[in-house]
């Protein structure tokens, strides 16, 4: 299939029926993943701090330093969470902040060393805003920061903080956060150093179809350059408890039809990214299952713990058995994978 260009993608979002999206994305997915396998990872999201200086309007998780609920995780707490993850068959922790202004490179290096000295677990950690901040704070290049984090035990980078890689939207909803170019720069540097990452997209806040496509284009062209993205994960903005909702009370979460279209378009547009993940955390299991017929081949993570989406008023919870059963009843073969999408076991 010929590559979709930006204007074709925008036109598709505006005009195509849900069935056109579904049929095309399903065909692409079958070509890339002909065996009908749907993967998932057993992991836990650990947010080492909720103190953040970005104050993004779409986020309900951050706290200021002097807020009674502000925290930085203790080593003891961190160790306990990792132990629980390993006990439940987990292979990865997703370690993310907060961009906490008081935490310097030393903190991160010590945290990573502590984890690696005590546990055999993959650390998928620190999204571009955190890494970019460290580079500013320490006066070191992004590459240097990444190298030091890698040396200390960082294995791969999650695709968070991308939201929408369209600066006109970012200026409105996350003016303090790094811009699109800076996000892409961090990812490029990581990929050049041989570190893999995922990429995410949060749509359905202030973005238009054009912004969604701009985001997909940015990811696709960096992927052409580096090949470093393992997967793409679109998910929809959850407005509850956010400043954005306070400011624009008419904002409603994007519906499932929009989600399925964006998911399908992601599969179609990102012909160079192997894996597309459904977001059962924001969509619920039934839509996640339908998403497997709209281009997705990965069910994400069991998320033994998740805080950020929950803070925005959504809490779909699923046990590992349910997740496996959900994949199976959708007509696919469930497989546990590692961070790099290698299959660990069939279930």
């Amino acid at each position: 299939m010929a590559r979709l260009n930006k204007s074709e993608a925008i036109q598709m979002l505006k005009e195509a029926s849900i069935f056109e999206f579904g049929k095309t994305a399903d065909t692409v997915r079958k070509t890339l993943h002909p065996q009908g396998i749907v993967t998932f990872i057993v992991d836990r999201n650990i947010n080492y701090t909720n103190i953040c200086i970005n104050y993004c309007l779409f986020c309900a998780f951050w706290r200021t330093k002097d807020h009674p609920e502000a925290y930085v995780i203790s080593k003891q707490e961190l160790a306990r969470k990792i132990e629980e993850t390993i006990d439940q068959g987990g292979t990865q922790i997703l370690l993310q902040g907060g961009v906490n202004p008081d935490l310097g490179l030393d903190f991160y290096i010590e945290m990573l060393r502590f984890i690696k000295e005590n546990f055999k677990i993959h650390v998928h950690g620190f999204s571009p805003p955190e890494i970019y901040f460290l580079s500013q704070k320490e006066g070191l290049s992004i590459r240097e920061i990444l190298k030091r984090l890698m040396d200390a035990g960082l294995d791969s980078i999650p695709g968070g903080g991308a939201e929408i890689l369209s600066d006109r939207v970012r200026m409105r909803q996350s003016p303090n956060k790094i811009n699109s170019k800076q996000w892409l720069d961090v990812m490029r540097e990581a990929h050049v150093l041989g570190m893999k990452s995922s990429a995410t997209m949060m749509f359905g806040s202030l973005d238009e179809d054009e912004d969604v496509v701009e985001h997909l284009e940015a990811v696709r062209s960096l992927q052409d350059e580096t090949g470093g993205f393992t997967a793409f994960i679109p998910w929809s903005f959850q407005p509850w408890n956010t400043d954005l909702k306070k400011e624009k009370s008419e904002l409603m979460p994007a519906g499932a039809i929009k989600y399925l279209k964006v998911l399908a378009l992601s599969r179609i547009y990102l012909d160079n990214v192997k894996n597309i993940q459904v977001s059962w955390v924001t969509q619920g299991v039934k839509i996640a299952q339908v998403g497997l017929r709209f281009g997705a081949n990965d069910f994400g993570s069991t998320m033994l713990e998740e805080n950020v989406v929950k803070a925005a008023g959504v809490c779909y919870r699923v046990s590992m058995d349910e997740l496996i059963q959900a994949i199976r009843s959708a007509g696919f073969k469930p497989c546990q994978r590692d961070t790099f999408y290698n299959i660990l076991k069939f279930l």
Partner: protein
Amino acid sequence: MLAQIERKIVNGERINEEEALFLFNSDEIHIIGQLADEVSKRINHNRVYFIVNRHINPTNICINRCRFCAFSRSKGEPGAYEMSIEDIIQRLKEAEQSSQHISEVHIVSGLHPEWSFEDYLNIISAIKKEFPSIGIKAFTAVEVDYFARLSGLTLEQTLLRLKEAGVDIMPGGGAEIFNQDVRNRICPEKISGERWLEVIKTAHALGIKTNATMLYGHLESYEHRVEHLFRLRSLQDETEGFLAFIPLSYQPENNDIKVPYPSGIDDLKTIAVSRLVLDNIPHVKAYWIMLGEKLAQVALLFGADCLEGTVIDEKVAHFAGARSKHGVSVYELVHTIKEAGRIPAERDTFYNILRIWQD
């Protein structure tokens, strides 16, 4: 065979049992959905209907203890409850105060061993008296059969009494799956499929319109679903008394049949095949309570032209693990329908349009 089915649908011809079974077994969810969507638009244009309603379940004490039901209790069991007529009137007053005018009340109850037919009739007449403009959708065929046995009246007499008391239409519940082998396993105490159809046929003959349902995703096979749909289609050919068909997605919690939730894909396929088979029933309803709000929206593009209403206080499905909210606002319903690219048509009990919600 898919091409043959597609041709038939496009030409407005009926599909047969074999073809319906083929569709259930088919993996071509997008093609099936698209066909159902074409039929849905042909029948109902671009409209999606909804109603401002409230569910009332006067008691959960029930002599039937269906294996799939997490709502029913025996008398004296913890969690058993009975509402008085005053309670019911009070709930409706609250609903009237908190939202806009309610167009319909949906009343489904347990088969209470100590209540008389008069007790049930009194609920209806009290509501009718207090709220003459609210449509009353009350009592499934299972309850009507019970009232007849309880009172020694014929089905006709029983239904006429209900009509006189103020029942406008009957809900479609209690149909479950008509096949008796499956019924023996999931609801052995409940009336047979034959009897359900007999009650409904009698109601239709008396001018009482009804809905029809199908509970799927438990122990039945696709063959059983096809059998169910075709029995409904045949009856509708005879009576034209069904207003809407409502596929009910099984909820497996707190009950005795331990199977996984039906997949979202199966839910969409079931809606679509229902739309394609039941060419003589005007409306197919997406019951968001069991599908979840998100999937219900997608269902509007897979053959459903009607969204269950505001509901306010759903109990039956929530006892069995439904993960949806207990009620939604008109604003949310209108938004959901518009976002699906359809025209929100607020309706009354009989599907007369009260208001088109345009910007």
